[in-house]
């Protein structure tokens, strides 16, 4: 019994020592994009609730840009409509993620307030999804974007379960977990994410939080901003202006 315990401990220590040496041994690596210096960036996102008209151009652009499956179960970003009635009732809907906007409300009596809330992956600083991945397939880059490695993901769906905001989905054909990448392929070339690009009302704001002149830095500085579910400690980087108490 003692020997089994000892050999298990020994193999862990030795394995750990060899494992930690591996990165030092493999110096040849991913510095092909030497012009893009990750440490200069810390991406953030802003959403101005007052400006959203629920047109769904963002949802459409995202699905096209990133080849997101067209069915109404898979969204990297979507828009929700909140309807608060005077009698305390709350109705939230998001037909096909609002890709073709919304049908007009059937019951318009006794409505206290109604507004649209766009949502997407918050690219949390201390994200629960990266914490639970058993194979190291999902991670947060040094510039603040949470990504999924399609080659390493085994499709266990633990991250989909762990995300408190429901932003991840299981890709039906690739059989991996998928989610918003903040259009990493665009932002690292100086472009905006597709959703920000097409938004007609400047509801969605994007930028580098390390740059005080970027749109998102100005947005966070000039407005009283909130995040979704601040009490659970994920430290999301998607900041909402004028977020209502009923928004989960």
């Amino acid at each position, binding site marked *: 019994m003692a020997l089994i315990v*000892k*050999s298990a401990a*020994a*193999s862990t220590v*030795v*394995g750990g020592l*060899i*494992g*930690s040496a*591996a*990165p030092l041994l*493999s110096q040849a*690596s*991913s510095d*092909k*994009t030497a012009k893009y210096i990750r440490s200069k960036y810390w991406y953030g996102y802003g959403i101005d609730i*007052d400006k959203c*008209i*629920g*047109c*769904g*151009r963002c949802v459409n*652009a995202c699905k*096209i*840009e*990133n080849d997101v499956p067209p069915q109404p179960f898979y969204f990297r970003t979507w828009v929700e*409509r909140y*309807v608060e009635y005077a009698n305390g009732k709350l109705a939230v809907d998001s037909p096909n993620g609002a890709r073709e*906007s*919304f049908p*007009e*409300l059937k019951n318009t009596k006794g*409505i206290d307030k*109604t*507004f*649209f809330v766009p949502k997407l992956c918050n690219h949390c600083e201390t994200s629960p999804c990266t914490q639970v991945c058993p194979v*190291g*397939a*999902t*991670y*947060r*880059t040094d510039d603040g974007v949470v*990504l999924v*490695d*399609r*080659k*390493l993901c085994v499709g266990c769906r633990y991250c989909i379960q762990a995300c408190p905001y429901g932003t991840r989905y299981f890709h039906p054909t690739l059989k991996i977990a998928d989610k918003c*990448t903040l259009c*990493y*392929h*665009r932002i*690292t*070339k*100086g*472009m905006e994410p*597709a959703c920000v*690009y*097409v938004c*007609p*009302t400047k509801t969605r704001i994007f930028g580098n939080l390390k740059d005080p002149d970027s749109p998102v830095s100005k947005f966070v500085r000039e407005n009283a901003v909130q995040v979704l579910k601040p009490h659970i400690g994920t430290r999301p980087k998607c900041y909402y202006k004028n977020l209502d108490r009923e928004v989960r």
Partner: protein
Amino acid sequence: MEKKDRNEKADYRHVYRIIMLAVGVIVVVATLRVVLTPKSFGKYGHYRADNMDEIMAQPTKYSSGSDTCEGCHDENYSEHEEGKHKGLKCETCHGPAAKHTDDPATAKNPVKPVKREHCGLCHGKKLTRPKNFPQIDLDTHNEGVPCVDCHNPHTPAL
């Protein structure tokens, strides 16, 4: 009780075997770890650093800005810049155009949305929309007539 013969050597072969087994397991596990771990794994953190480059290499479908369109479509562009839709990107209505701007001769042309439903996506009257946003009830306003018949989409105000 029989006294043990002190000249009999103690047999520890069972101990040596299990130590060899443990060493064998350690060697196998350590070798597999080094061999099977992808090269760039662990470079920046507990992930495969090469993946970031793979993701960055994804082709873009929407272009980088409306100024790309201005190069060939300067008439529409200047109309657009003077009109109420000034803040909109061309691709918000016309769809992704990166392929078209790279190769206008052979790539599929971007769409020209003329249906009423398209304008209704933004301008259909909805209670939830901000009050100061221009909206129209499409059920009563010139039913059946394409919006573009009266409103130039690049400078829509009449």
